[in-house]
C-alpha cells in the first residue's frame, strides 16, 4: 500500500511539474509576439507592484465586483494557506519556532475552511442562483471539502499515528518506499491532496501577472486620450 501511495504521489507531482513546464515552453514559443497597441509594453512602477500585491492578497477586484462572494473566497483562500503552512510540520524534520507559533491559527483555519467552502457554494447556488458553475471548479471545491473534512475527523475523532505519518512522509520525500500508516482516513486525505496537486488550478501562477497588467492598464486608462 505504502509503495502504491508513494508512486501515486510522484505521478501526481510529475503531472503538476509537467503542467508548469509545458506552460513555460508555450510562453517561450510566444516570446517574439507583441500585441497591437499604442501603449507600448513598459515596466511596472514600484507603486503599481505594491498595489498589485494588495490586489493579490486582498482580492480587491473580486471585492469590487462581488463583496458577498469576496468574503467567502478570501476567508477560504487565507484559511487554506494557513492550513497548508501548518502541515509543514509533518514534512520538516524539526519544525521552526515560527511554525509552532502558527499551529493554533492553522488549527482554527482548519475549522473555518469547510465553512468558507460551503458559504461560497451556497452563495453561488442559492443566493445568486448562478447560471454558471464550472464542473472543474465544482470538482476542486469538492476535493478541498473532502480534504478538510477528513483532516478535521483525524484531528478530533479518529487520531492516526502521527509518528508513522511523519515517518511515511519523510521516506516518501527522500524517494524511499515505506509502509503506509494504518489509517484509511489518512490514505483518503493523502490521495485527495495529491489529486489536488495534479489539478492545481493554473490561475494560481498566471493571475499575479494578469493582475499586474490589469493594474498597469487601469493606471494608464485615464491617460489614453488625456496625455499631457
Amino acid at each position, binding site marked *: 500500500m505504502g509503495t502504491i501511495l508513494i508512486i501515486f504521489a510522484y505521478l501526481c507531482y510529475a503531472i503538476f511539474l509537467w503542467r508548469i513546464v509545458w506552460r513555460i515552453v508555450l510562453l517561450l514559443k510566444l516570446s517574439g509576439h507583441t500585441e497591437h497597441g499604442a501603449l507600448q509594453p513598459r515596466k511596472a512602477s514600484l507603486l503599481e507592484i505594491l498595489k498589485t500585491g494588495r490586489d493579490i492578497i486582498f482580492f480587491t477586484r473580486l471585492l469590487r465586483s462581488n463583496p458577498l462572494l469576496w468574503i467567502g473566497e478570501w476567508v477560504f483562500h487565507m484559511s487554506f494557506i494557513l492550513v497548508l503552512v501548518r502541515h509543514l510540520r509533518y514534512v520538516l524534520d524539526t519544525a521552526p519556532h515560527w511554525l509552532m507559533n502558527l499551529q493554533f491559527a492553522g488549527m482554527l483555519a482548519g475549522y473555518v475552511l469547510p465553512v468558507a467552502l460551503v458559504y461560497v457554494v451556497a452563495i453561488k447556488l442559492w443566493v445568486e442562483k448562478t447560471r454558471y458553475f464550472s464542473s*472543474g471548479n465544482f470538482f476542486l471545491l469538492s476535493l478541498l471539502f473532502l480534504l478538510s473534512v477528513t483532516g478535521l475527523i483525524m484531528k478530533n475523532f479518529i487520531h492516526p499515528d502521527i509518528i508513522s505519518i511523519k515517518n511515511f512522509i519523510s521516506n516518501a520525500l527522500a524517494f524511499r518506499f515505506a509502509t503506509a500508516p494504518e489509517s484509511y482516513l489518512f490514505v483518503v486525505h493523502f490521495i485527495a491532496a495529491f489529486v489536488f496537486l495534479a489539478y492545481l488550478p493554473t490561475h494560481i501562477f498566471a493571475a499575479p501577472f494578469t493582475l499586474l497588467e490589469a493594474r498597469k492598464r487601469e493606471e494608464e486608462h485615464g491617460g489614453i486620450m488625456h496625455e499631457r
Partner: protein
Amino acid sequence: MKDKDTFISCLSQKQLLELDACTQCGECLKRCPVQDVTGDPSVSPPEKIRMFREFIKATDGLKSTLFGPSEIDRKLLEDFTKAVFECTTCGGCGRACPAGIFTERLWPMLRKEMVRRGLGPIGPQANTPGAIERTGNPYEKPTAERYSPWFPAEVRVAEKADIAYYAGCTGAYLAQPMVRGDVRVLSAIGEQFTMLPPEEEVCCGFPLFITGQHDMLKNLVNRLVKAYVDRGVKMLLCSCPCCVNIMVKDWPSLYGKPLPFKIRHLSQYVEDALKKGKLHIKKGLKERIIYHDPCYLSRGVGIIAEPRFILSQIPGIQLLEFERHGLDSRCCGAGGAARKVFHENAVAMGRLTIDEAVARKADKLILSCPACYEKVNEAMQGHDKQIKIVDIMELLSELI
C-alpha cells in the same frame, strides 16, 4: 488551414497567461449583455476560454508533442467560433473579471485565430474586406454619398488646417443626424477645420480589426495618416468611439511609429471650447435626459467626464444616470460587429437600454456613438416603450 495547426499564433504571452488566469468564477456573466439576452452559458467568457484552452491542449499539449496533434471536433470549433463572434466585444466581462483579464483585446485576437483557420468571420462580416476594397466603407455604400446627404450647406471646410474631422463610415451612412451635429458644433466653435474628400476618407480599420480580418489594416492606416499629414493636420477629431479606439490604440503600431498628430474625441474638443468661452449654449432645455456611455468610449478610452460636462452646461437640464454607467456601462448591443449577424440579440440589448431609460423617466436618451445610434433606434421600432433618442452633438447643435 488544418484543425491540427497551432492555436497560439495570434496570441501574445500576456494573452496566453490570461487564458490560464481564468478561474471560471463566472463573475463576468453578470456583466455580459449577451448573457442578459440569451441566458446561454455556453457562449459565456469562461466557456470560450475553456474551449480555447482545450484547443491549445489538443495542438500544443504533451500528448500532441509526443504523439502528434489530435483532431479537434469540428462541431466544437464551430460552437466556439459562433460564441466568440456572438460577443459584442464590449469589455464588460473584463471590467468585472477578478483575475484582470483584458477581454476587450483577448476576444478580437481569438476571432483573428478563427479567421486564420477559415472558420470565421460569420455571415455578412465576411464581406467587410471586399466592401472596403470596393467603396472604402464596410457598408458598400457609394463613396459619393459619404457626405452629401447630411453635410450642412452653411458649414465651411478648409483645404488645409491644424484640425481635421473624421466622420467615420457608420456616422456618415447610418447615423447622419449625429455627424451633421458634429460639423455644426465644430463650425460654431469657429476654428478652421479640414476633412478628407469622400474618396480619401476610407474606413479606419475598426470593423476589420474587430472581426479578426487584419490583412488590409496597415494599408488603410497608412493611406489615412498620409492624407492627414498632407493637409498639415496636428489634431484629428472624431466622434465615433470605435474609430477613436483603433486610432489611438492601434494606428501607431500599424503605422510603425508614433502618429504625427494627436487623436481627440470630439467631446474633449467641445468641452475645451465651452470652458474657454469659444462656444456658447444659447438655449435651455427643461428636460430629464439620460446619457449612455458607449463601451468603447468609457471602458475603451476613458472619455466619461467630458460628455457629462457638456450636457451639464445646458441650462435647465436634469442629467440622469443608468444604474451601470461610466466604466461599468452596459453595452447597448451594437458592438463588435455582432449586430450584423446576431440581429435579435442586438435588438434585445438595445431594448434593455431603452427600458431602463424609460423606467428612470427620462425624456431623452442621449447617445454618443453612431453604432449605438443606429441600433438603439432600430430596437425601438415595434417596441412597446418609446423614448426620443438624440446624439449628444445633435442635441448641442440645436441649442447653440
